[in-house]
Structure formats: structure tokens, C-alpha cells
């Protein structure tokens, strides 16, 4: 974290930090980076990967297609549609 990145975050999040606050934020993230480096140095090669924090598993459903939702209902909130398509600003030249 440096002042350039922090400035971008300020703009993205519509924040306005004082100089003191900026120093505090930069120092805070520098500490967290150091924490991460400590974790990176721990040898986990013989540790089994934790799949999930709880002993849970997904439910599955049978492969049976059902009637889809009404397209008109789904597109009610769309800014623009055309012949069943959603429309977005052109993404290729």
C-alpha cells in the first residue's frame, strides 16, 4: 500500500482522508503485509487442505429440466431489450 494506491481507493470509495488518517491506513496495511509474510513462511507441505471450515457437503439435484421463468418477467428490470435479447453497449470494435 502506498499513497498512489490509497488515492485510487479514496476516489473509488468516495472517501476523503486527512494526512494523519492516510499515514495510519498505510501503516495498518504494512503490518498486515508483514502478517501475510509470516504465514507464507510456515511449512504446510504435510498439512491436508481444509475444504471447508464446517463438516458440510452440498446437496445435489436430479438432471430433470423444468419450465424456465418467463423471459418477460426476467427482463422487466433491464434498461434495454430487443427481440428477447438483453442489450449492452457494444463491446467489440
Amino acid at each position, binding site marked *: 500500500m502506498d499513497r498512489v494506491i490509497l488515492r485510487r481507493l479514496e476516489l473509488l470509495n468516495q472517501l476523503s482522508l486527512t494526512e494523519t488518517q492516510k499515514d495510519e491506513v498505510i501503516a495498518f496495511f504494512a503490518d498486515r503485509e508483514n502478517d501475510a509474510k509470516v504465514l507464507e513462511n510456515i511449512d504446510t507441505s504435510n498439512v491436508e*487442505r481444509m*475444504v*471447508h471450515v464446517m463438516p*458440510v*457437503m*452440498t*446437496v*445435489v*439435484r*436430479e*438432471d*430433470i*429440466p*423444468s419450465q*424456465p*421463468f418467463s*423471459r418477460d418477467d*426476467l*427482463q422487466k428490470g433491464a434498461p*434495454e431489450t*430487443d*427481440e*428477447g*435479447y*438483453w*442489450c*449492452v*453497449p*457494444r*463491446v*467489440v470494435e
Partner: protein
Amino acid sequence: MKYETVIGLEVHVELATQSKIFCSCSAHSYGAEPNEHVCPACCGMPGMLPVVNKRVVDYGMKAGLMLGCHINRVTTFDKKSYYYPDLPAAYQTTQWFAPVAVNGLVEIETSKGKKGVRIKQIHMEEDAGKLVHDIREDTTHVDFNRTSVPLIEIVSQPDLSSAEEVVAYLDRLKNLLRYARVAECEMAHGTMRCDVNLSVRPEGSDKLGVRTEMKNMNSIEAIKRAIEYETARHIDALENNTEVLVQETRRWDDIKGKSFAMRTKETAGDYRYFPDPNVMPVVIDDNWFDEIKSSLPEFPEVKRERYMSEYGLGEYDTEQITKSIALCECFEEAAKTCGDAKNAANWIISEVMSILNLRQMTYDMLTVSGKSLGELITLVSGGKVGRANAKKILAAMFDDASINPEEYANANGFVISNDTGLIDKVVKEVVESDPKSVADYKGGKEKALMALFGRCMKELKGNCDPQTLRKILIEYIDKI
């Protein structure tokens, strides 16, 4: 300096399920209206939760076992950040940390012999939607019918070194996955897609060169051309400094015969993979695993050996039939029904495959049952139906698989007549109407007899035993 090409493939295969991977919308959008098969889940609406389609996991496991992989008994889904209009949630649900299958091996055969290609992993994921750019100039139209259609991505290690090996590898994948009936694998239909990762290095070097990834190849031939072009481009850049090679994704333009830079290659970090909190781990218990393992088909090479030893088929016939599991099943059932395996093989190779080719159907689209084909063969070998009419019955069976050959033959007048009175009558009429051919035959021209025979058979609509007709015809002419 001599160079060698190093190629790894990422092959996307659309799984042959009825519904999508995380919702119940139909997975078949061919011919559908835009956004006809969509729901809030596959449209990425906030708050919607995915529910895993069991058959996708079944097929992922089956594919893994067919390709010699280890199956991860706890497999998880992850989010891959990708911001583009064809992906409404702005991430793809895929597998990164614990894919369903890992560490496989596929054997291929080329003109240089046999070779093993290592499979790094097979992961299950959802497809993206389709973007249409040519309806209006200022707008991209978005169709989410394909969004969330289930895919597996098969990632190979960089063990391939030529277009010939790549083609052999893709053929082998197609063959194995079709045998397991998990996918259609038809590049022309978009149900199999392939990205080629390619680099070039001095022969004998163990250091990999700069790698480029090529997309947008829609056929095996296009893949071959793309590999040949890209290999030449890399060597040219290294030998003549024509350009600086960079790691990037390139688009193949098959009409221009060139690849073009699309974007600098992303790395895994760019996608910000993280475990999908909306899909709990998929746990494959022993019962589930055993059920899938026991449902695997006999492998093609095992089948080939068996066909030659058990049925006495030749190498060519065996090779043709084992191209498709549907042909194999049809053959085995037909052979059992008619009791003549060689005859059943001949019918499959000469008649069934030619109708499939004529109708531009893949072999796996065969719907004629082996039992019906066997019954038809029995009718022909038993002298009840002529070969020409049997072909007509077979064509009708392609249109309607429920047709019973014997009933159809009876209903359409295709049963060979034993009425010698009718044959005598037809022979008399034909011979008396063509004295020239009779004279030619008597003068030693065998072809003239064939012409008369053909006319008689036509008059009898093919419903006559050829040997009987020939005998009556010759006897009648000899009496003149």
C-alpha cells in the same frame, strides 16, 4: 538450429445433460428463442443460489476414469472473476483448488508409434452466454441460453509436439468420452472446443520457450493449420528476430490463415480465484464412486481384441465398428439376433454407415436397434426379402426406429414371392417383348441375359429369389 514444438491443450467439452449445471433450465438451446431457457440463477440475479446437477458430477467422474485420472472424493467449486457481458454474475463458477479429476494418462498412436499424454486435471464448470454483435451497430445483444450449460475442461500437460499428435489426442478424447456417453464432442456443433498452448525451443533443451495460447479453431483441420502457422511464426521470431514473442492469447483466423494477438495472457492471479461460498463441497462416497465405476463401458481397444477373437472379424471391420459405441451396441445385438456376426458387421459397415453418412448424422446418432437390424438380416439370409428391398426397409427404420422389419415387408409387398406361376408369367412377357436380347444371348452374349434378368426382377419389384428367377428364365429361353 533445429527446434521442437511443445504443445499443451485445454479442451472444453459440453456434457450431454438435460439441464444446466446449477439450475433446472434446459441445457439444449439449439433452435430456441433468445433467452428462452433462463432463470434468475443462470442470469446471475443477486441472491440466487446454485444447486448442483448430480449428473454433471457423474459425467465428470466418468470422464476422469476413462482418461485414467485419480478422482478427488471431495471436490469443490470456486469463483473465477471475469467481467464481461456474456457472464452475468461477473464470475464463472468453476473448479480451481480441488477439481473432480487429476493426474490422468491418455495413450495416443501416430506414425511415430505410441505415446502417453499426461492429463493434469479435469474440472467441471459453467459455460458463458452468447454475444451477438451484428444486429445493431451501437449495441451488443446478449443471449443467456448457453449460460450455465455444463462443461468439463480437460487440461493436458505440455506433452504434445506436432499437429499429428494433437489430432490423435483429440480423436482419442472424443472416442473415449463418446464411449462413456458423457458428451457429443462435435467441434462443428461447438460441443468440443480446443485452446492450444504452444511454445518452441531448441531441440534437446529442457527449458520451455515463450508460450502463446490460441483460440477460435472450429475444426480439426483448422487446429492443424493453426499449429503449423504458429510454430513457423515462433521459429521465425527466434531465428530472424522478426518480432518479440510475448506470452499472450491469440485468435486464429482460418480464412486469413493467421493468428492475431487478442490480449496479454492472464495468469491465475488475475482471475482472483476463491472458494465459492454458495456451493458446499461435493463429497463422493464409496457407493456413488462404485456406481460410476461399474457403469464404465468396455474400452475401445478391449472391444477390438474381443471382436476379432470372439466374432472372428477382420482388423478393418473391427476398426470401423469400434469407432462408435452406438455402432458397437447395434452390431452386438444384431449379431446375437441373426446369429451371423460377419454378416451383421457387413451390414453395419456397408449399409448402416452409408445411410448415416448420407444423412450427415454422426455414428452416435444411430437410433436403429441392433435387434431390428438382426431381424432384417435374418429376413434377407432366409430368402424372404431381397437385398434391394431390405435397404428400403432399413431406410424406413432410420425414419422410424419402432418399425418391425417383417411387418413392414409384409405391409409394403417386399416379401419374396414363391409363386412360380407369377414368375413364369413375367418371364414370358419380358422374353417375348425383347427378341433381340434373346437372340444376343443365344449368340453367346451373357450380358443380354443379365438385361432380361434385370427387367424381370423390376417387374417383380425385387420380390423374387434371384436363383429361382435365373433358373426359370434360362429354361424358358432354352425352350424357344
